């Protein structure tokens, strides 16, 4: 494990903020278990729980907390200077941090998604949701990591993207769905396990290409931004 990975992981798990990650996946799990045990028709609870809660809220919000935390928290408290004053090419800082963010998000989200998918339909749907969720975790993490270098309010901007762009505009202006990671995840999951529960609005090729593009593009942006990272003077 590289030193950057180690410091990032310790920083992430060492902060209270980490506890914020637990409730959302637990709610998702709890609702799925409840619906199943009450014998509700999966056609009724599947879409709102799997998509409405799982893919539209739990995945992006967990990715937001972690993605803006791995570098943004260090920028906020100034400890980022310790890593930046080392003769490391900047990609060697961004990639390990992205790996930690995407990895932790994927694990945190994929497990409840898998369980919920199994309860709603089949193991195949569970796996599809987990895999698509992990890919989505990578794309979201790259986006939020880059946001934390582009703006001083990454969490706010990230929330605006998730809630306004993906959540609200997606319902009224169908064109915005082409630029919605949430839609890519749904399309990919539905491709792996076709069921009547997931309603897709972008094609699978578009979803695959855009997921890759978002992941790579924002990572490159983050590396470039970190190269020109400026510390604002406090006294002047």
């Amino acid at each position, binding site marked *: 494990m590289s030193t950057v990975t180690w410091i990032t992981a310790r*920083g992430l798990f060492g902060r209270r903020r980490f506890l914020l990650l637990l409730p959302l996946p637990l709610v998702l799990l709890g609702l799925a278990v409840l619906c199943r045990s009450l014998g509700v028709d999966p056609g009724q609870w599947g879409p709102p729980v799997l998509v409405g809660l799982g893919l539209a809220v739990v995945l992006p919000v967990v990715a937001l907390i972690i993605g803006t935390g791995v570098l943004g928290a260090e920028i906020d408290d100034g400890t980022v200077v310790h890593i930046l*004053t080392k003769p490391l090419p900047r990609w060697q800082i961004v990639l390990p941090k992205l790996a930690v963010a995407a990895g932790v998000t994927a694990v945190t989200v994929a497990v409840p998604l898998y369980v919920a998918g199994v309860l709603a339909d089949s193991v195949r749907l569970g796996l599809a949701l987990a895999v698509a969720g992990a890919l989505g975790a990578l794309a979201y993490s790259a986006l939020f990591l880059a946001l934390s270098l582009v703006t001083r309010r990454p969490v706010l901007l990230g929330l605006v993207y998730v809630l306004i762009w993906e959540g609200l505009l997606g319902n009224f202006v169908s064109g915005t769905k082409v630029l919605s990671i949430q839609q890519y995840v749904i399309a990919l999951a539905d491709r792996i396990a076709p069921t009547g529960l997931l309603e897709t609005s972008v094609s699978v090729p578009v979803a695959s290409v855009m997921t890759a593009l978002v992941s790579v593009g924002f990572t490159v942006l983050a590396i470039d931004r970190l*190269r020109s990272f400026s510390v604002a003077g406090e006294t002047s």
Partner: protein
Amino acid sequence: MSTLSLTGVSRWYGNVVAVNDISMALGPGVTGLLGPNGAGKTTLLHMMAGFLAPSRGTVTLDDEPTWRNPDVYRRLGLVSEREAVQGFLTAYEFVLASAKLHRLPDPAAAARRAIDLVELESAQDRRIGTYSKGMRQRARVAAALVHDPQVLLLDEPFNGMDPRQRLHMMQLLHTLGDAGRTILFSSHILEEVEQVSGTVQVMVAGRLAASGDFRTIRRLMTNRPHVFAVRSTDDRALAVALIAEASVSGVELDPTGLTVRAGDYGAFTRALPRIALNKGIRVRQLVPSDESLESVFSYLVEA
């Protein structure tokens, strides 16, 4: 031996000029960067350390730019003013992580050497979060020294240190400077700089107001008359008596009292009680009105 060179460096934020056309070359030894709060010291240090792009001019370390060039950190160490450390690490872990990030051949030995240098061995296995401000500062200095850099930049390193820790830090900087390292530290406290380094760069309002040997600059400053505010039972009579004094170069009389300009600080302060006693005047107040660092600096800027 490394040289840090600044050529015509300016930095502005919108309409505000933080650093204004500064050129200097820093060689081996300890240099103090002196200036009142808000003079632009931190901005200048950040540009030297590659954390800020100059709006104009160049900052180079041995002819390589420091901006967008992480390779300079092989030879450069920075201790920033902001007291930021990963509090969940122990000092040893913290310094060791620095050594590993530098890809040193023997990180453990380097970490122990650096901790030894700042005398933090006894506390090295405690979490930094439990440290006092001075200890945290030393941990950060150890991390900045772990790769034995040729150039070390410190922003207000004595802040929050107790007198013993200050003394130790001063000795450490001296030792490093004598060993041929280029050390630059900033401070807004004249006495700190005086004790640590002979060479100073004085910044005022973003400009380089003076640079060179401290004692020479100090002497230049004492050529200026000292200004005192005096209040007494009979200001007019006192003014008449004072203007006859050789050490006094000017007296102003206004409703609130006297403003006295004295060429010789010592002679005037010895003469005043004698004159007052002879004339039977009671002196109610004697305040040196330009003793603050800022006014000394403003002299330098005007000069």
